[in-house]
């Protein structure tokens, strides 16, 4: 079973990887065929499938980070993720479904600091298989993380992942 404290600890490491600019670590929190999508509460309500980020493999997440590092142009910025306590929805021997609320502040190089996004992660955690996980201390991976933003509005652009 994947317990609450493992998910909390996993989420803490996940947030720290993004917020400390270790973006290359970020795909390692996912399984090879994981689904990662960023959408909003209105699309979820209307059952609309698109995302502003839409990935169905870990490779796509690696490509996104490569694009951020090599190709895309955006002002220097950081996030600070504050993650709430996961609400475990269902558990089996191999996987756990949980929703976790987030609050992400964006800090621009100018010092401007805004609430950039709030919402919840709709997650499916699975146990890591073999030794291919770079976050092996956690022993669990995301098979799915749907990022459901509370607001339909994204200010300026979304470069760093949520």
């Amino acid at each position, binding site marked *: 079973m994947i317990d609450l404290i493992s998910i909390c600890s996993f989420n803490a490491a996940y947030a720290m990887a993004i917020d400390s600019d270790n973006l290359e670590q970020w795909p390692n929190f996912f399984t090879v065929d994981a689904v990662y999508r960023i959408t909003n509460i*209105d699309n979820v309500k209307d059952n609309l499938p698109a995302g502003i980020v839409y990935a169905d493999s870990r490779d796509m997440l690696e490509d996104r980070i490569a694009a951020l590092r090599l190709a895309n142009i955006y002002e220097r910025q950081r996030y600070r993720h504050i993650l709430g306590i996961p609400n475990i929805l269902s558990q089996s021997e191999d996987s756990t479904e949980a929703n976790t609320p987030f609050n992400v502040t964006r800090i621009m190089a100018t010092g401007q600091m805004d609430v950039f996004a709030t919402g919840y992660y709709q997650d499916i955690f699975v146990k890591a298989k073999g030794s291919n996980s770079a976050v092996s201390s956690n022993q669990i991976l995301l098979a799915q993380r749907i990022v459901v933003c509370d607001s339909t509005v994204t200010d300026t652009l979304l470069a760093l992942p949520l």
Partner: protein
Amino acid sequence: MDDRNKHWNSESLTRIPYSLYSDNLIAADEQIKLFLGNTWNFLCLEAELKEAGSYRTTHVGETPVVVVKDDDLKIYAFENRCAHRGALIALEKSGANANFQCVYHAWSYSRQGDLTGVAFMKGVKGQGGMSSSFRKEDHGPRKLRVAVFCGLVFGTFSSETPDIQTYLGPEICARIERVLHKPIEVIGRFTQALPNNWKLYIENVKDSYHASLLHMFFTTFKLNRLSQKGGVIVDPSGGHHVSYSIVESDLADNSYKDQALRADNDQYLLKDTTLLKGFKDFDDGITLQILSVFPGFVLQQIQNCLAVRQILPKGVDRTELNWTYFGYVDDTREKRTVRLKQSNLIGPAGFISMEDGAVGGFVQRGIKGASDHNAVLEMGGEYAESSEGRATETSVRGFWKAYRTLMKI
């Protein structure tokens, strides 16, 4: 007029006064002369109003508008402003209503925007009530003329705006029909808040010069199609445009793979190339078509990724950009998945569009203190006409041509 002297001292389209992006008087004038004037403004997709009573709230410029389908299955639009005290009539983004009622004093309206009910009109127990001369027919929110073209719902406040097909012209109509030739359905909606004047975004849309310079995604990952041909169409008014590019069909299928093989080892290639795995939506080989309708509408086809964008001013230095992603109703599951994956290219986090959310803000911040200086728009000449190459600012000049005509500036 004094305004002309203040902002522009020549007829040329190659110099754009920076004051036009920050002047509150200009912004107020635009609301009257452009948005409430002789222009067609995108309201929503016909596919978003499924049945009688379905409505959406939107804006024409900054003016709030309700757009609704009635029992006759025609689409009506009226100002979202109660005729009594001016409160919003409809508060939700969308819904389905038999009629509309203002929450403030319960004045009610039909789906066609007619005032149908005034609470306590005859008073209460003989006390109060409206004067005997009050006639409901004399009061109501302003109504828009509505035109539906290829499933796009446009509205205009002016009785003088020419009919939609005349407004668009045959070339623009044909390019809209090319994309919207069969029923569509919405697959997602996203809004981007831009830290800049609305004109900076529409200029960016029309600017085919910046594409390969600002957006490095295709170049970085060696996804450029060297065989690309293309062009820019500017309609006679200048206000509408199409920018398109074509990949030679014999190269299309293998060019990614070939280029991957040729790429140097130290260059990064996409690990998951399914991102750009597409299929042929159109027989003409056009893989990119960006189309704009004056003042603030965009229809885009980027490979298999289809969307409309609505550009709304929110004060002089803020803009709301509403993205509506769509597919065809008859898409197979595989085709739909392709569209969803390719949507990584567009929107607020798009590999080839995220920069567009930021550059307008760079200009807005850069021109502070330079209101008596001008932007330079000379790439590709001085004119605002259709052009073969894409290293041109012709359609941006076209925007200003239409702008100056309507603004009388």
